């Protein structure tokens, strides 16, 4: 066993879960996101969406979707999606990213896509950890959060992806927790019709890689803790230092401005 001190009393033994649990662990939010999003996408009128993703947990959504999915090298879904969208105008192009990718090798691409107003919709499934790789901190892991590989706590500050996209000029930005139920459904429907470039961040924590290392006794307890971090009204200026985050549509504040932004960004 590891000689590293186990600082989390609730943490089970290392390796207690079988390897396949790392792909889609117990209580992983990806399944819920997949089912709900698939329903919303299927209800869309017009031509079917095109999905783009790379590796990692979030890509399993695109890989298992029916229809046209493009699985591309790590970090590159957004620029690939740009080329695809320009070649197929009129089709919605959805890029599925994880926080490992979006706050790592794809971070530059994300900021530039927002800056240019690429005709692409980005979904970031943020589990605040490199789950598939075995529980290492990602660029979005909050400071001090323990992961399977860093039980002493992640050293750096986690980037706020939704806020970065907003500051870089995205036409629409939203964020929700995976446990938010119909609020998430409504936000996703709005996201599908919103002007582009748009980004929807869904916080979907990972129990084996993070939850059990941070004192949560069960996946349900972990999700309840996540809900307590969500600021549902009037807290749009909350910063990551507080370990809390505003949810809902973050930009534009006034939905009628979304239409104006769409005209400005239309390609």
């Amino acid at each position: 066993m590891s000689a590293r001190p186990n600082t989390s009393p609730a943490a089970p033994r290392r390796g207690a879960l079988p390897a396949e649990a790392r792909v889609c662990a117990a209580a992983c939010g990806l399944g819920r996101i997949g089912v709900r999003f698939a329903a919303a996408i299927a209800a869309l009128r017009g031509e079917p969406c095109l999905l783009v993703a790379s590796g990692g947990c979030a890509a399993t959504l695109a890989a298992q979707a029916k229809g046209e999915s493009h699985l591309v090298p790590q970090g590159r879904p957004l620029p690939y999606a740009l080329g695809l969208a320009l070649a197929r105008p009129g089709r919605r192009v959805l890029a599925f990213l994880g926080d490992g990718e979006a706050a790592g090798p794809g971070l530059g691409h994300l900021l530039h896509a927002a800056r240019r107003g690429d005709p692409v919709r980005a979904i970031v499934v943020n589990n605040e950890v490199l789950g598939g790789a075995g529980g290492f901190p990602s660029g979005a892991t909050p400071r001090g959060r323990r992961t399977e590989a860093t039980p002493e706590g992640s050293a750096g500050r986690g980037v706020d992806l939704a806020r970065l996209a907003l500051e870089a000029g995205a036409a629409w930005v939203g964020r929700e927790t995976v446990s938010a139920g119909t609020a998430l459904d409504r936000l996703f429907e709005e996201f599908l019709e919103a002007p582009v470039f748009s980004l929807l961040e869904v916080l979907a924590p990972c129990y084996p890689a993070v939850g059990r290392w941070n004192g949560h006794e069960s996946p349900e307890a972990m999700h309840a803790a996540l809900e307590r971090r969500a600021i549902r009204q009037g807290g749009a200026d909350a910063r990551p230092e507080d370990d809390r985050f505003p949810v809902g549509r973050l930009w534009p504040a006034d939905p009628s401005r979304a239409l104006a932004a769409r005209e400005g960004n239309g390609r």
Partner: protein
Amino acid sequence: MRLLLGNEALAWGAMDGGARFYAGHPLQASAEIDRALLSALPERGGTAVLVEDEAAALAATLGAGAGGLLGVTATNAAGLAVAGPLLEHAAAAGIPAILAVVGSPGEAPATSPRPVSGIPRVETASQRELGPLRWCAPGAPALPVYAPASAGECYTLARAAAHEATARSSPVVLYVDHVIGHLREPVEDAALLDEAPERADSFRVRDAVVLVVAVGIVARAARSAVRLARERGVRAGLFRPVRLWPFPELEFREAAAGVERVIVAELNEGQLVETVASAAAGLDPRPSVRSLADGGMLEPDRIAAALEESP
């Protein structure tokens, strides 16, 4: 007839071959390709977009190719270094694309005691990309890589590359060294040139006893060197792989049949010589193969001196 830089001719050839999309991250070596495509593609109903880095440029080009628009992007050695996973993906997924790699300018070799500073001279070249291009899609069979040696050939090979990329649903690479990319030369309006390009170009090989193998600007110096050597009574010839990879072994064996010596002249530390040696190993009589490698430039006199050496 137009006077074009090699880089410009490449851009026009790609467009005339059917490229309708460009994504690029402009770099000094390849900026003329970017400029030509940015200004001309929209007029032809195409789409051109500037992106943040070399990987994004190639990724967007592949996205467009997957969406049905043949794309082209241009990069340099640094872009080639990050292209591997994307080219591998494109080869596996069958995505057509044109990747133009413009070689680095010449620099003093890494072992030089003097530091190199200032803007590199256009008339120098390095061919340090020759070897890496062989494995530019590491997990896939060698992608077709063409190495033009004039502005006219930049045009015809780019045009042919566009046709080949579409026909084979595969990325096709054009490798232009720094001098060829920046030589301004007459280019025929080649509406009539629809035949597939030769895979190799042989010059005075029929009675040759010594053969020089070279690509790009070095092949042009070598052609002069062959003439110089012939004037001095040495029966020399030139073999130039137009399709650099996969190396045209059959054409090489045909050109090298009966020669005693093969000299591989290249602007690097000797990246092509092993491939040539392995192709020559099947010949009877088997010629000796040696490398004439330099990090700066190989002038005709120097190549001629190597051709005239006694075995």
